[in-house]
């Protein structure tokens, strides 16, 4: 479908509310650590641009993938963190003697992905009235290009474009970048817009 300015405004609003919810959730997980947010940046780009969408395709990343569906809407959601940001979060949340990239660290990343993606879906659900269910998360650790390329290679029936929401949160005197990629199935975006009265 063709995405106009009105659609982009709606996505920006969704990104803003979702990021606010996600920051609140992360703050709670980090024992009420203050987390400030920059206004999320929303980009819409053709699917084939995914592998390079986060900059250097050779950058090592951690990605948590979940499928959301319900009320006739289906989308794949991928939360991507640089490996450095992932390790930084894990070390704040796990006991010191745990290996950040061991079994418990991987488990934590999947739970973190589940909670943060649910924060965004909660915003989408509130805005549309749709009830969306998630599949269990799966985790990938690899170079961004290879990992994101494999996501679209496995998917059929996707819209021609994907949505990238770039978030920058500030905590522990450092910036933590988290990127959310939304890959709607054909017809899903139109259904969401129609539900919200934006055509």
């Amino acid at each position, binding site marked *: 479908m063709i995405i106009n300015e009105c659609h982009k405004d709606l996505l920006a609003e969704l990104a803003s509310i979702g990021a606010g919810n996600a920051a609140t959730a992360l703050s709670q997980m980090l024992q009420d650590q203050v987390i400030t947010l920059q206004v999320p940046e929303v980009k819409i780009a053709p699917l084939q641009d995914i592998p390079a969408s986060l900059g250097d395709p050779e950058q090592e990343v951690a990605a948590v993938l979940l499928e959301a569906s319900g009320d006739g809407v289906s989308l794949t959601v991928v939360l991507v963190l640089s490996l450095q940001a992932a390790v930084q979060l894990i070390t704040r949340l796990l006991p010191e003697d745990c290996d950040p990239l061991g*079994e418990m660290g991987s488990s934590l990343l999947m*739970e973190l992905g589940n909670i943060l993606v649910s924060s965004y879906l909660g915003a989408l659900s509130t805005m549309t009235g749709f009830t969306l*269910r998630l599949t269990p998360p799966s985790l990938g650790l690899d170079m961004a290009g290879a990992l994101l390329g494999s996501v679209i290679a496995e998917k059929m029936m996707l819209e021609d474009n994907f949505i990238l929401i770039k978030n920058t949160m500030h905590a522990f005197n450092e910036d933590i970048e988290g990127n959310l990629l939304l890959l709607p199935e054909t017809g899903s975006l139109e259904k969401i817009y129609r539900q919200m009265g934006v055509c």
Partner: protein
Amino acid sequence: MEKTVLIVDDTAFMRMTLKNILVSNGYTVVGEGEDGIQAVNLYKKLRPSLVTMDITMPNMDGIKAIKEIIEYDDQAVIIVVSAMGQKALVIDALNAGAKDFVVKPFQPDRIAEALQKINN
């Protein structure tokens, strides 16, 4: 009477977090399950006084597992602990027989409050 709990969540990190909170609230963890099928089987085997149940899990989700456990034992005490806080899903879980619904992430106090609620 000993207070026993079965913790059901597909991620080891969340099971560890819940275990620490429940043990500090006087519960003995008698079992841990990673999906709904394990939850139902372990419930029948262990008959714990409490179950904490995630919703989004592989093989069988938490809502279906609650229904099967309640069908087996309508006195089962189940608290849902899930990141999916959408209203319709909360209602589904409560209609299935859950006694409370805790949205992840949570503070330990929120779990303690749910325990107090079921014990009253």
